[in-house]
């Protein structure tokens, strides 16, 4: 399906989604509370069939956080990007590790680096950071570490 057809189909599934122009793939902005049903329908609807999550990350804009998911379908080979704004003080979103298993590790990484709480995640703990780094989210823009970080 082309980007136009995807845009049409997705606005039928999720009326509140807004689309960004420009870019090679279709960018969808949605609310965090719709993520559970939306992600299930992205994978289960036969004409969409997004079964490959190839990137799960978070971006810290200084006023808010944005979760970014890159999804592809291995049957139709179409790709979309789903973005969702999160509040910095209450960063919570539903997990997708029960839909795409790879998200288990990626969400652990976002949890340890940005502090986003993933609801219903089977095993949410630190992935690469050593013990003692709980609560400190190094990739947030307001992270300060006077010992290690030398300011430019």
């Amino acid at each position: 399906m082309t980007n136009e057809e995807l845009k049409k189909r997705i606005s039928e599934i999720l009326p509140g989604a807004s689309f960004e122009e420009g870019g090679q793939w279709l960018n969808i902005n949605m609310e965090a509370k719709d993520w559970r049903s939306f992600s299930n329908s992205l994978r289960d609807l036969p004409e969409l069939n997004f079964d490959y999550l190839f990137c799960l990350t978070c971006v810290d804009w200084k006023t808010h956080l944005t979760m970014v998911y890159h999804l592809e379908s291995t049957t139709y080979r179409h790709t979309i990007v789903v973005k969702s704004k999160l509040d910095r003080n209450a960063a919570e979103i539903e997990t997708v590790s029960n839909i795409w298993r790879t998200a288990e590790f990626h969400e652990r990484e976002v949890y340890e680096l940005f502090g986003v709480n993933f609801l219903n995640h089977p095993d949410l703990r630190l992935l690469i950071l050593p013990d003692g780094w709980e609560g400190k989210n190094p990739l947030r823009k307001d992270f300060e570490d006077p010992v290690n970080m030398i300011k430019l």
Partner: protein
Amino acid sequence: MTDKNNIQNNIESPASGSEHGNSVIGEGGIPVFPGLVHPTPSGGILVTAIDDVINWARSNSLWPLVFGTSCCAIEMMSTASAKYDWSRFGFEVARATPRQADVIIIAGTIVNKMAPVLRRLYDQMADPKYVIAMGACATSGGPFFYNTYSVVKGADHVIPVDVYIAGCPPRPEALLHSLITLQNKIKAGLTREQIKESSKVENEGH
């Protein structure tokens, strides 16, 4: 071989030797083999100091420990492979165990989690051991010097380093140049270990 040619040339045309014989000087002023050749009718007698011969032997057969953490490891691998072969200089086998290695080439970034591992590997190496810090990250933290919570700003915070290489990553020729520099340092008796040894002997003499 170049060594034999130099010896022959020095015997036939005595140039700047001492009163006892001719030193075996190669290119660059560094002796290819330490000592003086005392010419006799049937060839020559090589008079030398054992320390110099030991240094010569050590420097020509340094076995590196595989320690590539980051992108510099790719350049190290390419130095080790056929095009820029470092086994021409004696770095024949790259030992995986520190017990059998002489030189540790820190090729890559040292992060805070890796620093105790590096220290342990260095402590497990047997004397005499040498350290080459390859690339910008091992020298000073490199591109990760500012604003990073997890990188050790230079491998010399963890272990003492003999030779630093600049570059990100340094070309294989730069790594070979640093290996030759280390060899010259060892032959001249100037590495940290050798200075420590010689000062220890002086202290014991008091």
